[in-house]
């Protein structure tokens, strides 16, 4: 039997927790012998790997071979530039298709999070997946979840159970971002958790649907509320839930 905090203990050990959460874990492991033992194990594995593992560096022959290849790439480019005349034509020839694809793939997958909103949403989603952070009010009943938001958040989002369509309502949570208490409705689809964030936002364009750190994010607006569904489930499944909620929101607003 593993303590529910074990992933957070690991995150603490790896320096991934903020000061508050770290203090929380320190307090927890004082009373939990299992997590104390886990910390010892983590330390031992780290020491063994860092001290005993054969530490390799690139062999000099490989280094030389690479240096020669780079030289010949440079020479090719110079020659192409001379042949092509204007230097800017040469400048484009250097971007190989595969390398460009590799570069782009990397930045699509792991961009520096430049938009604070996207950053907040992804962090909130990841944080929610840590033990005991997912749900404040556990219920599959929308008549329990929706009123709960009234006392705990600044907004009252669309809440519904789409169990028949494969999206089970499992509860709700309050989260703070964009300077307000946002409401989060939590759905389960197969083994995946989908967090649907909602917050008041009258102005400004919403971000495009995007993928951050491997999490898909679908945005839409309903009335003056902005919504974002975040999950590591497939795009189609995520869009399916977004569509259901959007339709329901449009229906509510008309009435």
């Amino acid at each position: 039997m593993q303590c529910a905090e074990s992933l957070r203990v690991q995150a603490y050990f790896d320096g991934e927790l903020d000061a508050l959460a770290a203090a929380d874990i320190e307090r927890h492991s004082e009373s939990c012998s299992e997590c104390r033992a886990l910390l010892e194990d983590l330390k031992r594995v780290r020491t063994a790997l860092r001290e005993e593992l054969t530490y390799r560096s690139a062999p000099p022959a490989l280094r030389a071979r690479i240096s020669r290849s780079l030289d010949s790439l440079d020479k090719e480019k110079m020659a192409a530039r001379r042949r092509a005349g204007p230097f800017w034509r040469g400048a484009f020839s250097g971007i190989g298709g595969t390398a460009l694809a590799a570069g782009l793939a990397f930045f699509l997958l792991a961009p520096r999070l430049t938009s604070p909103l996207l950053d907040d949403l992804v962090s909130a989603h990841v944080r929610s997946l840590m033990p005991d952070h997912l749900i404040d009010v556990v219920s599959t009943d929308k008549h329990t979840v929706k009123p709960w938001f009234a006392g705990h958040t600044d907004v009252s989002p669309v809440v519904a159970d789409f169990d028949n369509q494969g999206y089970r309502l499992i509860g709700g949570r309050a989260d703070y971002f964009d300077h307000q208490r946002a409401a989060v409705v939590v759905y389960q689809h197969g083994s995946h958790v989908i967090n649907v964030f909602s917050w008041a936002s009258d102005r400004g364009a919403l971000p495009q649907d995007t993928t951050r750190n491997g999490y898909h994010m679908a945005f839409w607006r309903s009335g003056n509320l902005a919504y974002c569904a975040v999950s590591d489930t497939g795009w189609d499944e995520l869009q399916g839930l977004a569509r259901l909620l959007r339709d329901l929101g449009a229906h509510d607003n008309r009435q």
Partner: protein
Amino acid sequence: MDDKRRRFEALVMPHLDAAYRFARWLSRSPADADDIVQDAILRAYRGFDALRGSDVKAWLLTIVKNCHLTALKQQQRRGFVPLPEEHDAEDGEAMIATTPGPESASIRQDEARTVDRLLSGLAEEHREVLVLREIEEMDYREIAAVTNVPIGTVMSRLARARTALKARWLKEAEGKTHAVR
């Protein structure tokens, strides 16, 4: 040397050792690792203009990982059957280490080879997160980028990898006591 090459040498080449180590743990064959790293550096150089941001090491290791996957696919297409995992003996260091040396050195090397061997025995997805976290000291976000999985998956893989390594270690220690007594 033009400006691009100079910037490349200053920003990317310092991570050549990390790229090589990562390739060695992915491919497990020194010759394959050489080819993967060479391929990766050339790709990185061609795509260097597209590099934005400061996370050069994670960017380079992502390319190494892609080159490794490409090489694997090519080997499979050619019907290449990889050697079983124990055949790491083609590794020069492993062969040298079998020759008896001064006792302390040989114990030391034996120990090093134990951890090497235990790590080699892990599944690739476990080996790679352990190497990226413990040897390359990358954070979860960077590991997620290089391995192309969500951060949550990085966390659970790391936990499983560490548990698996510890389990193998205990088993090894047990085996040794039995052998001696």
